[in-house]
């Protein structure tokens, strides 16, 4: 069954026990992103301190893929320098557009490498990207507020 390539245990584990979930104070920007075709929704907050991602907190409803993606995202970017976080984001995007052919670097993407199987399913790529798009939007808003241009 191909399903195991999409629903790897890492993904199901994050789905059942999401990391960093819940909305926290303080935060610099909050966004609400939806996937209008399937009803997935995420509210996501970002706190930035100088060039560092201090915190990412979120509340979401959605499928296992989008929920797990939010959990993995927070593991990857919280505590990172902004430029490193954006570079991880780029690598994740690259993998998600690889149609299953990517060979992701586990040193960079850690648990997120499990999503390479999802990239073979066009309808589900947007599920995996939903929290990342929200994070990028919230981070840009946080930086704009502080007068920093990314």
């Amino acid at each position, binding site marked *: *069954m191909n399903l195991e390539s999409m*629903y790897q245990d890492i993904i*199901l584990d994050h789905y059942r026990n999401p990391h960093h979930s819940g909305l926290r104070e303080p935060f610099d920007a909050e966004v609400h992103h939806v996937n209008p*075709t399937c*009803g997935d929704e995420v509210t996501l907050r970002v706190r930035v301190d100088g060039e560092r991602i201090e915190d990412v907190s979120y509340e979401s*409803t959605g499928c296992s893929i989008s929920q797990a993606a939010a959990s993995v995202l927070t593991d990857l970017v919280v505590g990172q320098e902004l430029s490193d976080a954006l570079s991880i984001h780029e690598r994740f995007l690259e993998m998600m557009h690889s149609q299953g052919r990517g060979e992701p670097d586990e040193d960079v993407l850690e648990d997120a490498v499990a999503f390479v199987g999802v990239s073979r399913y066009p309808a589900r790529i947007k599920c995996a990207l939903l929290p990342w798009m929200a994070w990028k939007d919230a981070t840009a808003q946080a930086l704009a507020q502080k007068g920093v241009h990314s």
Partner: protein
Amino acid sequence: MTTDLAGSPVLRPRPPVGSVADAAEALAGAQHYDVDVVRKDFPLLARTVHGGKPLVYLDNAATSQKPTAVLDAEREYYERHNANVHRGIHVLAEEATAMYEGARTKVAAFIGAATPQEVVFTKNASEAINLVAYAMGNAGASGPRAGRFRLGPGDEVVITEMEHHSNIVPWQLLCERTGATLKWFGLTDEGRLDLIDGVITDRTKIVCVVHQSNILGTVNPVADMVARAKAVGALVLLDGCQSVPHMGIDVADLGVDFLAFSGHKMCGPTGVGALWGRGDLLAAMPPFLGGGEMIETVTMERSTFAAPPHRFEAGTPMIAQAVGLGAAVDYLTDLGMDAVAAHERALTAHALDVLGTVPGLRIIGPPTPIGRGGAISFAVEDLHPHDVGQVLDELGIAVRVGHHCARPVCQRYGVPATTRASFHLYSTQREVDALGEGLLRVKAFFRL
């Protein structure tokens, strides 16, 4: 029903619906309905997916598959008769016009319209609803005949909480343009309209309601809605997308003023739908889109407009698709809509039984086969429908997941989305059983 090429209508007399005798006749019809024979008319149903698994197509509320007769009709039109319609004095133009207008005649007979001129071809049902909404918005700048359609502050438009977005958004936009107020009937916990008094008032100009909900499957009490609307002089628009393909429809019996439906859900091609409107209303309605075909005379200053239905069909229409829809109507008529409805009723009852055996499954909508059709939404514990649908797809079972363009319904029942199985005249009990088994596999996969 038969028509000649020029489309002269030969309307079949229709028996009154709803009697005990009819029900008995419908059941008798179902016994002669051989679904395995019917399926042979649909080439796509024979295909396999994901490495040889037979396709179990349960996404019929989204769109239906097409019988060979429809595919052949479109192909033959293009191969033998293709020309633009209503213009040109040559053989092909005359044949194309006759085929296009013949399709109108077939559709009119299928829904019990008084004349073919009461049927306007649109690109889909959404456009049919928008046609009425925009015509009403244009009525303010039209002559006294259009008074019936004029809306302003203080006037009210009534919809329901179970409408498809295409029967919500056009009315929201119309109210924004005109200053009228949008009101709606809410839903009961069982998935039916909560028909309280006070929603329809003497300020109500139009009541827009779905005949059969695409997400809940509920079949609404049209007669009750019509009685309430008529009592205050309001118009009634019925969204028939999920009813016209699945049951015998007679607009005169229903008593509504407008009926919108799509071709592709009734075994016809995509790109064609229809608006039926009562003749006197269409005649008084201002145009929606301007362009070729819809005019009477044009000067540089102003234009006068053609009579319905052409007033509402600006530009070259979807000729081949309309011809295909005409073939679909012939196909459905040959099967007999009473037989189709009886088949689907039995299938829906079986599906509710099967789904009831899946532990942790909750039906969202009426739980019994009474007053509901064959579109069944459900939740499997707290699994997201995307995950349910993904595992089912792997098994070859096509269902729809999401909010089904009825987000307010999902909000009403506290779910982000639903999984929906929906049947058609070629669906089988085997397929329903496969769905039940598939859902057990879903639960096992996610270790529930």
